[in-house]
């Protein structure tokens, strides 16, 4: 215990100074705050000034006995406070999360606080969907202390004097050790009872949002710690991991499925905040603010809120931030006020028309034209992006006729077979939002497109477009430029080929086989050359002639590896119309995980000859670098070529 607290106490006291010294005036108040803050105080690893401030604002609004405190605060400071903190939810009702989800989490917490063994909950979801808020609110309502781990910001210069270094040496233990320590201690010891501490809240909940970096490099070390934790612990542990769209989804790295199963980790996945819920929250905040500012601040009207809501793509934190920013009173100039008043009006008109349009055609791309302030880049999970292309949504007929009248005469009769209704998606945008390289997106499309087409003719056209797309990106020198065109050809080609437009219902999507097959092909070719180099054959004749026949001969092989290889490669199971290769289903929200192959391929294409490395990794190394063809050649082994 001492090891950490001595080192960190300094830091914590310093931090507290950073945060706000005003707390010293109100010890009672500071202790009536949630136990989480205290936990962090005791452990001294609390670094964010944001949270306490939030609590303070909240307390100021809710507790009457802190009014005097509030009065002392300057109005300026109050204004600076982010609304996100000021209006952070305090009860389940205020949470912008679906009731079912809250219930789910609540049930979990209820069940697992009462048992005396350690359990782990993993909350995932996009950023700003209220994961942390849910845990905080529930913990408060259930009377749990939240003890949160934050990465120690121990940045004492290493080169300080010898003495100091000795003094602080214990705090130089690795983050990993500190994390382990933290889990152990929060588990074992209760917080000190403080005066004014309300109620016997010795039940607690450990929250980890911030992972020591080491875990990303070696997830195994986290797993070891967790295994130990599960065996010894008495209180629930909650991990919060934000989903990311890029390949390195941390929840997958840190908590692979095997570990989740092994340690019985429950996983609750949050969805982005629904627009209606978000509208409610935004409206509430803006009315409250408007009331408070006594007309100084203009009330943001519904249309503006709607734009904000659309632009934030389900991230409530960013939506509230944008709201605050957009309603900032511009007091510097008189004109500014005018502008402020005018702006919403114009955007109101636009937004209203947009809303109407949206209702009519359900087009999804409008909010792009004018991104709301601080709008978030909209993004799509791969699963959805693929679905958008493969399912091929087009405008239905009534709308189409109107569009046709507008766009003049249709196609001439001999080209009429190429007529298609207007698309409801913008393929380029979909690819862009999937955050995937065009090449891999095409691979995913290729793996899955056949299921969505019913006619051979359609399949033929689609496959031709895919072939075209590959041809466009074939040359690696121009690939960066051509990639976009390639994906454009592929996606639009697929959409166009889907002429029947029958709704196929749900079809599972799969990960592309090609990368694996290609890798295997390369590896095996190299292995073949390596193992059978004494035959001095070119690869093609080796693979298509010698190996298959060797499988049929009783030719004594020199070593085990060769025998195994021949059995593997030379023989093929003569299954009639074999079932599909083992397909790996692509699940919702899964990032395209293709990193290793990508690198390898790129390396190869850039002429780095990565293949050789693959061989050496996967094949038994030759013990000597000279293998003799014939026994009688032993004599000349000593020969060197120079």
């Amino acid at each position, binding site marked *: 215990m001492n090891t950490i607290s001595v080192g960190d106490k300094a830091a914590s006291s310093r931090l507290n100074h950073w945060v706000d010294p005003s707390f010293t005036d109100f010890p009672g108040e500071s202790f009536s705050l949630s136990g989480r803050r205290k936990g962090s105080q005791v452990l001294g690893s609390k670094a964010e000034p944001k949270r306490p401030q939030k609590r303070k604002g909240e307390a100021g609004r809710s507790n009457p006995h802190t009014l005097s405190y509030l009065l002392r605060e300057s109005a300026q400071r109050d204004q600076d406070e982010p609304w996100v903190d000021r209006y952070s939810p305090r009860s389940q009702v205020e949470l912008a999360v679906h009731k079912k989800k809250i219930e789910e989490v609540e049930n979990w917490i209820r069940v697992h606080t009462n048992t005396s063994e350690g359990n782990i909950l993993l909350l995932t979801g996009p950023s700003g969907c209220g994961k942390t808020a849910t845990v905080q609110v529930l913990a408060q309502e259930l009377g749990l202390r939240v003890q949160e781990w934050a990465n120690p910001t121990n940045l004492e210069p290493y080169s300080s004097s010898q003495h100091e270094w000795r003094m602080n040496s214990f705090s130089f233990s690795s983050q990993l050790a500190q994390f382990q320590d933290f889990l152990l201690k929060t588990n074992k010891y209760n917080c000190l009872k403080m005066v004014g501490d309300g109620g016997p809240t010795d039940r607690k909940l450990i929250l980890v949002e911030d992972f020591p970096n080491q875990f990303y490099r070696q997830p195994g070390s986290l797993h070891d710690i967790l295994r130990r934790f599960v065996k010894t612990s008495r209180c629930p542990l909650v991990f919060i991991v934000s989903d990311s769209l890029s390949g390195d989804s941390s929840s997958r790295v840190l908590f692979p499925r095997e570990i989740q199963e092994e340690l019985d980790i429950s996983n609750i996945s949050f969805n982005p905040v629904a627009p209606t819920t978000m509208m409610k929250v935004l409206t509430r905040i803006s009315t409250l603010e408007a009331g408070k500012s006594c007309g100084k601040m203009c009330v943001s009207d519904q249309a503006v809120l709607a734009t904000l809501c659309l632009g934030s793509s389900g991230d409530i934190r960013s939506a509230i931030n944008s709201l605050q920013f957009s309603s900032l009173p511009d007091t510097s100039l008189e004109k500014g006020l005018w502008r402020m008043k005018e702006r919403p009006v114009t955007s109101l008109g636009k937004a209203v028309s947009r809303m109407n349009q949206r209702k009519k055609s359900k087009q999804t791309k409008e909010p792009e034209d004018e991104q709301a302030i601080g709008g978030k880049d909209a993004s799509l999970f791969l699963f959805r992006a693929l679905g958008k292309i493969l399912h091929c949504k087009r405008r239905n007929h009534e709308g189409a006729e109107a569009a046709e009248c507008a766009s003049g005469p249709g196609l001439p009769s001999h080209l009429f077979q190429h007529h298609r209704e207007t698309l409801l998606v913008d393929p380029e945008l979909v690819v862009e939002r999937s955050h995937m390289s065009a090449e891999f997106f095409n691979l995913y499309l290729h793996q899955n497109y056949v299921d969505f087409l019913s006619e051979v003719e359609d399949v033929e056209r689609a496959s031709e477009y895919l072939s075209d*797309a*590959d041809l466009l990106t074939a040359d690696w020198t121009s690939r960066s430029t051509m990639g976009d065109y390639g994906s454009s050809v592929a996606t639009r080609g697929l959409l166009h080929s889907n002429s029947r437009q029958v709704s196929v219902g749900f079809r599972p999507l799969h990960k592309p086989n090609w990368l694996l097959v290609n890798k295997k092909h390369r590896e095996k070719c190299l292995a073949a050359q390596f193992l059978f180099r004494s035959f001095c054959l070119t690869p093609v004749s080796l693979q298509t002639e010698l190996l298959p026949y060797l499988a049929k001969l009783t030719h004594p092989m020199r070593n085990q590896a060769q025998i195994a290889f021949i059995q593997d490669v030379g023989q*093929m199971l003569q299954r009639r119309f074999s079932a599909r290769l083992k397909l790996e289903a692509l699940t919702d929200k899964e990032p395209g995980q293709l990193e290793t192959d990508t690198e390898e391929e790129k390396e190869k294409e850039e002429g780095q000859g990565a293949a050789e490395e693959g061989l050496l990794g996967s094949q038994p190394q030759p013990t000597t670098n000279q293998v003799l063809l014939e026994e009688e050649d032993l004599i000349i082994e000593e020969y060197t070529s120079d």
Partner: protein
Amino acid sequence: MSLWLDKYRPTSLGKLDYHKEQATQLKNLVQCGDFPHLLVYGPSGAGKKTRIMCLLRELYGAGVEKLRIEHQTIVAPSKKKIEINTIASNYHLEVNPSDAGNQDRVVIQELIKTVAQSQQIQSSTQREFKVVLLTEVDRLTKDAQHALRRTMEKYMGTCRLILCSTSTSKVIGPIRSRCLAIRVPLPSTEEVCNVLTSVCKKEGLLLPPELAKQISEKSGRNLRKALLMCEACRVQQYPFSADQDVPVTDWEVYLRETANAIVSQQSPQRLLEVRARLYELLTHCIPPDVIMKGLVTELLSNCDGQLKTEVAHMAAYYEHRLQLGSKAIYHLEAFTAKFMAIYKKFMEDGLDAMMF
């Protein structure tokens, strides 16, 4: 025990079984003392390498048969290590530069340089030059071929190149003009039969002429394949019977079944099955272009005359793309889909014609 293929490989120009006239010419070439760079080309299994080894033996004597396999590491200017296997004797060095992929240029330059810079020890009793044998020249990148042209001229004094490839079409003009081109055609069916019979006689086996003929036909006059087939026949059944089945490789059977699957039904579902089979072939080390070729041959045999031109045209189109593109499966599948569409249309038209 080694394969018949290696056991009965002729070792001198005089012992070659066919194209004897060419063998004598080569012998004369060697006896003249010096010879130019050679470009030996011809289809696979025609005996190019055998002929080259015979030539080398004629040049240097039996010492050239003492081969060793070396694993060489070459450091490219970009500090990238390239590992490559070479087969060498005291007098020559054999290397397949295309093993190094895109770095083949470096391999060619470095290897030839090291070989060419070292003189023969006793130039009085031996030839003044060493020989570098490059196989699969047609798979070299353009870069490497240009580098080769320069190297050829530079080290003419100490080193001769023998280039070996299946076709000259992918060898750039400047190289072709610097070499004496020697074409090694496939042996005729009778020649293959003769070789098979003589090999079997040496093994102490009796090969019925009918079976020999059947093997030589099935092998497509590829002598390597014929000998392997013959040996497989021996494993399968001995004494030979005249009408016994000649074993065919598993992948060929698999490919034939795939073609049958395409012909028997044309639907998206079937295409998925075919795709899985193509993947299966690829994982068994069958190169995409071989798959394409085999598939077309099988499909054509199922086609009606007027369809054949169209199918062949498409095959050529997609084969070309296969060479240019980076992901073979797109093109293989596009070809399959195209064939399905054409074939289906053809069958439907035919059915309509029958009705009326």
